[in-house]
């Protein structure tokens, strides 16, 4: 019988990195040690633990990584709680990739990129940022604005400091919500920080973070002169199938799992705001 999209494959968690008190990054490979499948930045996969549940996560690793797949996961529900309690060697099931992904080879090509993330919102962006880094010549300048509640809540802090910050043409702007003694950088909320940074408007912006941050950052960017068609985001919603059949993740006539999760704000404007 032919392959059924809803029946997953087996995979193994080989490494667990503790990013923040409530975010861990899981490295996942097939039992024979290969990357489960190919994907494009911004796409998602369904992870499940039989008996616990199945949930959709964005793939955090870049497609340029050929050995494994990574997922940065924040503890918030049933499946994530379980994942946060497991140890390396734990089997999971995986299926995907799902969604449209970022237009890295079309709309983003040769553009100056501005990535803005808040908290766990960096997870889906990390894939595209690293993709851009690995295909550096295909993209213009890269600015990354990333903020979180505190220094401890910055996901991938080590990679950001050790790698991203040292690369040419990449500017990383970090911020945290409240003063901390050991923090020397900027303090303040992401939307305000974006306005302060006064980016020029010839960039393509990608936003990801909590709804409230998205709302104000979008307004901020528009104030700076950005047009809605220049701004992308990626959405999250409850999903069961991932292939546009189970009927719950639609925004109007668009399914987030199939037609999204990446949308431009001018597209979203024409859809009901049920997200």
């Amino acid at each position: 019988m032919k392959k059924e999209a809803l029946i997953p494959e087996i995979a193994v968690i080989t490494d667990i990195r503790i990013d923040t008190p409530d975010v861990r990054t899981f490295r996942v490979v097939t039992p024979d040690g290969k990357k489960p499948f190919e994907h494009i930045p911004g796409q998602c996969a369904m992870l499940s633990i039989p008996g616990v549940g199945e949930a959709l996560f964005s793939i955090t690793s870049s497609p340029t990584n050929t050995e494994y797949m990574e997922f940065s996961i924040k503890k918030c529900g049933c499946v994530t709680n379980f994942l946060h309690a497991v140890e390396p060697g734990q089997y999971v099931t995986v299926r995907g990739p799902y969604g449209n992904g970022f237009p890295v080879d079309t709309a983003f090509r040769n553009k100056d990129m501005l990535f803005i993330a808040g908290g766990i919102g960096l997870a889906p962006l990390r894939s595209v940022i690293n993709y851009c880094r690995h295909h550096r010549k295909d993209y213009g300048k890269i600015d990354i604005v990333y903020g979180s509640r505190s220094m401890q809540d910055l996901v991938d802090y080590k990679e950001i400091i050790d790698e991203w910050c040292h690369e040419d043409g990449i500017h990383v702007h970090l911020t945290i919500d409240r003063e901390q003694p050991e923090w020397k950088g900027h303090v303040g909320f992401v939307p305000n920080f974006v306005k302060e940074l006064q980016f020029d408007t010839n960039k393509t912006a990608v936003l990801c973070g909590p709804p409230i941050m998205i709302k104000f950052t979008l307004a901020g960017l528009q104030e700076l002169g950005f047009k809605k068609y220049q701004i992308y985001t990626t959405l999250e919603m409850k999903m069961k199938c991932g292939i546009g059949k189970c009927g719950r993740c639609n925004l109007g006539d668009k399914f987030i799992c199939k037609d999204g999760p990446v949308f431009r704000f001018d597209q979203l404007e024409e859809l009901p705001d049920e997200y």
Partner: protein
Amino acid sequence: MKKIQLSLLPKLLSAIAAKKALYLPVDGKAGADYKRYEEGDTLSRACRTNRSAKDFFFPQVEDMAAFRVEGKKIEIIDTRKENEDFVIFGVRACDVRSFDILDRVFLADPVDTFYENRRQHATVVSLACDAPEETCFCRQFDILAEDPAGDVAAWIVGDEMYFKAKTEKGKKLLSSLDVLLADGDSAPVEKEKKHLEAIQHKLPISEFNKEHFKPEDLMEHFNDPAWAELSEACLGCGTCTFVCPTCQCFDIRDFKTNDGVLRYRCWDSCMYSDFTKMAAENPRHTQLERFRQRFMHKLVYYPANNDGIYGCVGCGRCLAKCPISMNIVKVVKKIGGKKA
């Protein structure tokens, strides 16, 4: 065109059942419902079964896979089996159309193999409606109850039943029953069709403004203030979605058996409060939004994605079954009516 004396219908049914699994609507305690044919069962003449015929291809509960869990290890067991060949006999035009609507979801890439498997093994024998209920309105969706689609279409004219194969599968079925069937003239059927069509025109639910539901008016309909009033009395049960032949939302769940995990899918309803509920957020947190979703899906979203075909077949089940008598007709009249 083939025909058979109605008195010989039991013979025909047994002949079909001898070769393939046969399902047909049978009158029961509380109305008609499909059941697997057993000797002695008679075809119900009711124009509507309680449950729709979607169950044949998209059953309420369906096992998808099993898992064996031992320590940290997981093993997947593909429990799928090739479906048996079966015939559904006496499907009304509205339900036949619903198969088409479901096909566009489940057979779209990536194909749902569970659905496809059943669909491939089924032969649908449809039956023209001779006594529609006053709650029927399939004609409003351009469905011809007097000339239903399907692999074989059937008509009851007087004391004879006529059959016409409409697909290869249908031809095969009819030819396998050749011994019992006589050749029939199409004239009585054509006459009957005219008669049946005339009945259709007398049905009370007309003046339907479905053409006002254009995909380009999506936001306008979405923001219609009338949704609040329409959804006010909605109990949030799943009756309308479960009796609906085109509702296809499902949930995937795990059941812990004594030695592993069974993953199954079951019908879900967009009317349920936890349908879109996530750990922290719920994008449709009131019944208004859930109610709106159901009707917007049938009248706007589905057509937008499927060449303008509406996700309703006018079978009238929701009219008959809703505990508070709120239904798509009231919605269409209220929301679509404003544009007229």
